[in-house]
């Protein structure tokens, strides 16, 4: 046995005044009475116990000295050697994944797990140490090894609820690393056991699983994505997947809203374990938040709702320079995103955003920006004009170009086509038998140029279905539309964001010092590193729409509510394992409080308790005069 505080031995000197007071006490006070007649009658019965009467004062002194000895011994903080050896190191792995938000147990599985955790903390013995690791998307050490129970309780209470996938396996690995240098270790997992490695950990000797939840049925949206159509400039496609994680068939409805307006309702009748997956085509020039909901009451609410971001279609201003072509006019007017302006004279100055369409006209110097030339009438800075082609039949076309998507021009006659000699090598999309370009693109620093070498009035191309598709593809190509997909991210994922591409140089000129802030769906800001071009965000452990805002560094607090988001991410619980609320395996219920034994306290605590008990006994026997 070792003594932690040997100097406390000096408190033993208190025995001296105790003995002095004892001597003073046994010198009895003399009380005169008129007669002893009556007192003799009373104390006559006590005479056989006179030996005890004499010893009782001595016993009182011994009790007091023993009380002092216990206190002094407690102050000296005695430690047994076996106590040091048997000290346990425990890591509490708290599963705070999405499935722990299930409400099949009140109030939810995470709260129950925390209750179990508090019981584990209460069961800590003296010199035991515990660490707390959260097992969300990324395992985090919430509290290092310590024996201070209040710190552990605070750390346990601070474990947040997340919508992320479980990371119990990684957390156990982390816990084992924490305990690597210690003996007598144990890992306690507080989880609903809805993870694949549960059976492995149940068999492990150093791991104890304390279940926090039961078996619950659930219906979940496990996939929800949207993208703009590659063909239809205002069309979009929705991919949705719903899984019935139960052993009973269910009926429910899948409602999809765009900006608050219902765009589709799909009745669902799912058998047990059935997967429903479907692609839905919708049209809308407007973008916004696309929200999917299933009206089914189950234990987990986070997977009954999913959100995706539909990009807004950009409007394309088009300046048609022609002396008259009804075909072209009608084609451009039929495209919903086109703002058409017509003129018959060559413009002097054109905005770079405007697509200029030259029909049967050709300026000597093509303007900057995007240009579509149909049936060029003369030479320009990019080509010189030759004679008419002898056999302008389409013989070859490049089908892998986005400009030729869904376009088939085999053997189509292109009358009026002319021989062209280019100063820059074009990319030929459609060529004649003699491999003369009939439809080609020219890349130049000032902008894109698309050239259609055909006389629309003479041929039947405008009458073909391929013609409006070609023009629509051309509009998309000029806009750079590649079927934009803003992927709805699964919770727990980490993404890379190019911050430099989000802010144009013109924007930053006004505000030289800028900072980026990541806002979670519940509005909690997380500052992103400034002055970097690329950063990593995540893990995104909350369902909803995450935003990145740009804020002036000096006015961060002031601009909090004024800033427009420069980037948004939709984040959904698209994790079938998390949505399945049934444990991977049926485990035997364990008694959580028995994990560490009962009531571990330091020796000084028991000494103090013994001293207090002794004081209580002394008070009852002597102060209450039970001993007389």
């Amino acid at each position, binding site marked *: 046995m070792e003594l932690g505080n040997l100097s406390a031995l000096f408190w033993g000197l208190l025995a001296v005044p105790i003995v002095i007071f004892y001597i003073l006490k046994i010198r009895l006070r003399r009380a005169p*009475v008129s*007669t002893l007649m009556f007192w003799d009658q009373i104390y006559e019965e006590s005479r056989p116990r006179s030996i005890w009467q004499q010893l009782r004062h001595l016993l009182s002194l011994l009790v007091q000295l023993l009380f002092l000895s216990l206190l002094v011994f407690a102050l000296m903080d005695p430690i047994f050697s076996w106590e040091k050896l048997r000290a346990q190191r425990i890591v509490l792995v708290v599963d705070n994944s999405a499935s722990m938000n299930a409400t099949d147990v009140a109030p939810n599985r995470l709260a129950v797990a925390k209750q179990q955790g508090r019981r584990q903390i209460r069961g800590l013995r003296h010199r035991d140490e515990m660490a707390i690791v959260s097992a969300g998307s990324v395992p985090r050490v919430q509290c290092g090894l310590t024996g201070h129970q209040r710190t552990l309780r605070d750390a346990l209470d601070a474990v947040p609820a997340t919508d992320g996938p479980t990371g119990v396996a990684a957390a156990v690995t982390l816990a084992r690393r924490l305990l690597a240098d210690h003996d007598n270790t144990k890992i306690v997992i507080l989880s609903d056991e809805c993870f694949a490695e549960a059976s492995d950990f149940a068999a492990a000797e150093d791991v104890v699983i304390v279940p926090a939840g039961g078996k619950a049925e659930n219906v979940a949206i496990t996939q929800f994505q949207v993208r703009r159509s590659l063909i239809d400039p205002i069309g979009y496609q929705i991919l949705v997947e719903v899984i019935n994680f139960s052993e009973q068939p269910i009926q429910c409805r899948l409602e999809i809203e765009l900006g608050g307006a219902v765009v589709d309702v799909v009745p669902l009748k799912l058998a047990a374990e059935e997967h429903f997956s479907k692609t839905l085509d919708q049209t809308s020039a407007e973008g916004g938040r696309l929200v999917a909901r299933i009206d089914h009451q189950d234990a987990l609410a986070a997977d009954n709702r999913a959100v995706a971001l539909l990009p807004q279609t950009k409007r394309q201003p088009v300046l048609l320079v022609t002396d008259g072509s009804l075909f072209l006019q009608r084609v451009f007017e039929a495209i919903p995103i086109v703002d058409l302006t017509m003129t018959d004279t060559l413009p002097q100055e054109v905005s770079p955003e405007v697509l200029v369409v030259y029909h049967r006209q050709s300026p000597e110097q093509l303007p900057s920006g995007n240009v579509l030339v149909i049936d060029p009438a003369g030479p320009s800075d990019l080509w010189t004009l030759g004679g008419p082609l002898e056999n302008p039949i389409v013989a070859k076309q490049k089908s892998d170009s986005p400009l030729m998507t869904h376009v088939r021009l085999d053997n189509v006659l292109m009358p009026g086509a002319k021989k062209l000699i280019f100063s820059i090598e074009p990319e030929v999309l459609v060529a004649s038998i003699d491999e003369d370009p009939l439809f080609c693109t020219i890349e130049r620093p000032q902008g894109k140029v698309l050239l259609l070498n055909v006389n629309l009035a003479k041929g039947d191309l405008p009458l073909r279905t391929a013609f409006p598709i070609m023009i629509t593809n051309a509009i998309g190509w000029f806009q750079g539309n590649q079927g934009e997909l803003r992927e709805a991210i699964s919770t727990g994922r980490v993404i890379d964001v190019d911050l430099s591409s989000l802010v144009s140089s013109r924007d930053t000129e006004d505000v030289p010092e800028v900072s980026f802030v990541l806002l979670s769906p519940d509005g909690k800001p997380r500052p992103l590193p400034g002055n970097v071009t690329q950063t990593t965000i995540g893990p995104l452990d909350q369902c909803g729409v995450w935003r990145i805002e740009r804020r002036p560094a000096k006015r961060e607090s002031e601009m909090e509510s004024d800033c427009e988001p420069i980037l948004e991410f939709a984040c959904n619980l698209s994790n079938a394992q998390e949505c399945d609320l049934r444990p991977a395996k049926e485990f035997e219920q364990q008694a959580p409080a028995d994990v560490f034994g009962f009531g571990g306290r330091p020796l000084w605590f028991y000494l103090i308790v013994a001293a207090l008990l002794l004081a209580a006994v002394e008070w009852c026997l002597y102060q209450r005069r039970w001993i007389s």
Partner: protein
Amino acid sequence: MPLFDSEFLKKLEYLSLVSRRVFRGQLLAQRRTMQMGGGIEFADHRDYTPGDDLRYLDWNVFARLGEPLLKRFQEEEDLHVYLFLDCSRSMGFGDPSKFDYARRITAALAYIGLADLDRVSVSAFAGDLLDSFPLTRGKERILTLLQFLEQLESQGTVTDLARVTTGFVHRRQRPGLAIVISDLFDPAGFQRGVDILRHRRFETHLVQICDRRELEPDLAGDVELYDVETGDTKKVTVTERKLRQYRTVFGNFQKSVESYCRKYGLGCTRTTTDVPFDELILQMMRTAGAVM
């Protein structure tokens, strides 16, 4: 502060006047006393109380009315009043001491007797007769009597009333009213001494004086009890339980005094020193009616 000051004398005079007003017209003469069976002339009736001698029950009245009434007679002779004052050390206990209180009571009773032309004597006793004031008559003798009382001290060892009364009756005293003023803490028992008086046909009255601290001792814890009369000591631990036992034992003692007096038709007055002596005298005259 003198024991018998002018204020005390005023109170004695007041008590004397009150006693005359109370008893005149009832006793018809100053030298008469009411004594059960002591005379032949019928005086009045009083209610029967348990312990009364059934020989004096008026059977005619009982037969006619159904109420047990006792006949009272007047004895037509000079009344001899013998006052026995306990001077043992136990009487010196208390604040004010029981001894001072007893001397005032003795003085008051003697004054009333002398004022009524009775013959009064005072015997101071403890283990034996310590001093005595012989039979005297006349109100003018009161000052001498007070001087006698004032020079007395609580002394002596163990109270022995039997020895005192034995010596008293051996002196062939004429029967009369014997008033014993004491705490009655006689280890041999006060009954023996009183029995001797009773057997010699003395009309006996006991005045038991106690101190409040004898009724309710303010003792607790480990104490050494010191008997002021014998000098004996006793080391005890006084607990609540023991105090309860003490109160029971002391209460039993007082009940024994009361039952003894009732049994033999003796007058009995019990008091504590915190009761003013004049109130006690009035109370004795009103309730017992046996004093004068």
